[in-house]
């Protein structure tokens, strides 16, 4: 067994540098690597290209890194929950590449899977297709999309073991598995860290081969963005 355990978020983010490309798992605030984000903020690195489905909210998640202006370019599919983001984007301070959510997911998977490019129908005839090769398959136009990789991929799992194997909970899985595949160095923060052999090998979502460092997150706020409930009858 190859042991991937490191002590904490600070140790897990050793080697991050200004100008790097970083992936952050999560959908909205669900399943984001909270502890790593704090550590990257504390590291003070900047001019980052960040790949994440969303950009957090003003005072949580990647929103922290927007406040500190550490992000030079954002690659995302939806950024509608963040005023500071919109301000920086419309003022031109922040470069933004918006891409379809499914293409984002598939491009990360492709990056991890050694597939340099693939055809998808998503975005044909829109701004997203500008400059991209178009080819017809099954009577339908498709555009050629390329793989995404990152210097660091930061993901958050529910449980993990010493070998870096990860299990996610509910819809907190989202982009985490593909980004784990696509990082040159992949860092996983987990709520529960167990010895190798404790996870059922049938129930692991992300094999440890994709994870270089794992640690038990210091704190998890797990903030809810839209608390919707119904009354008890």
């Amino acid at each position, binding site marked *: 067994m190859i042991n991937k355990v490191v002590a904490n978020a600070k140790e897990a983010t050793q080697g991050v540098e200004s100008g790097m490309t970083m992936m952050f798992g999560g959908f909205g605030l669900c399943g984001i690597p909270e502890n790593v984000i704090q550590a990257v903020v504390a590291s003070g690195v900047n001019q980052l290209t960040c790949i994440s489905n969303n950009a957090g909210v003003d005072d949580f998640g990647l929103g922290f890194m927007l406040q500190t202006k550490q992000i030079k370019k954002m690659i995302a599919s939806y950024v509608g929950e963040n005023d500071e983001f919109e301000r920086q984007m419309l003022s031109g301070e922040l470069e933004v590449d*918006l891409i379809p959510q499914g293409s984002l997911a598939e491009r990360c998977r492709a990056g991890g899977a050694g597939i340099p490019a693939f055809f998808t129908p998503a975005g044909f005839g*829109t701004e997203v297709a500008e400059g991209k090769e178009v080819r017809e398959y099954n009577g339908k136009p498709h555009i050629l999309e390329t793989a995404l990789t990152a210097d660091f991929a930061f993901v958050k799992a529910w449980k993990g073991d010493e070998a870096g194997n990860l299990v996610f909970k509910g819809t907190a899985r989202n982009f985490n598995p593909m980004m784990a595949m696509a990082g040159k160095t992949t860092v996983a923060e987990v709520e529960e860290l167990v010895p190798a052999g404790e996870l059922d090998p049938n129930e692991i979502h992300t094999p440890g081969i994709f994870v270089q460092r794992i640690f038990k997150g210091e704190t998890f706020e797990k903030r809810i963005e839209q608390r919707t*409930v119904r*009354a008890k009858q």
Partner: protein
Amino acid sequence: MALDKIGIAQRIAQELRDGWYVNLGIGIPTLVANYIPEGVNVEFQSENGILGMGPFPFEGEEDADLINAGKQTITNLPGAVYFDSATSFAMIRGQHVQLTVLGAMEVAQNGDIANWKIPNRMVKGMGGAMDLVASADNIIVAMMHTNKKGESKMLKECTLPLTGVGCVKRVVTNLAVLDIVEGGFKLIERAPGVSVDEIKNATEGNLIIEGEIPEMSL
């Protein structure tokens, strides 16, 4: 009288067929889940990674790890399953989802749709909408027929950046049910008490009216 959002959702719910997997967008489409016809079994997919989505949780039972694509806390139903975003869009792109219902800012008479960007003013991003509209065979748009200024959103050509081209099959608005056919918007049904003239006035694109247009029954 023109429909409210609930009415639009109720009308769209009539389109559901037994055995369908359905993706409901944010806003009015989400409401469709509340009006599933009797005897019709459908499962709702949310593109952030769940099939078998249930209603909102009871107060105090919210789980930060269980949300829908609108970031709302939800529950799951028996038979539900969670998956990652690549698998989710494999379902969508691979046409395993039988119906997509989503909102729009504009729809054009050739089936083009725009719903993700107003240049220099509002850029929220397309989220999963571009994948959904490019992939699904069966796309229904839920929207208001006109904007707040009373201007038509049923256009000859979209003015905003497109989300997808020639993909919309049917539009259900507060005023009417319209199908996209060769030559324009074909009027299928009127909202209760709404006249054909009202619909004509609210539609900038070519409106095709054949024979008597029935009222919706909700």
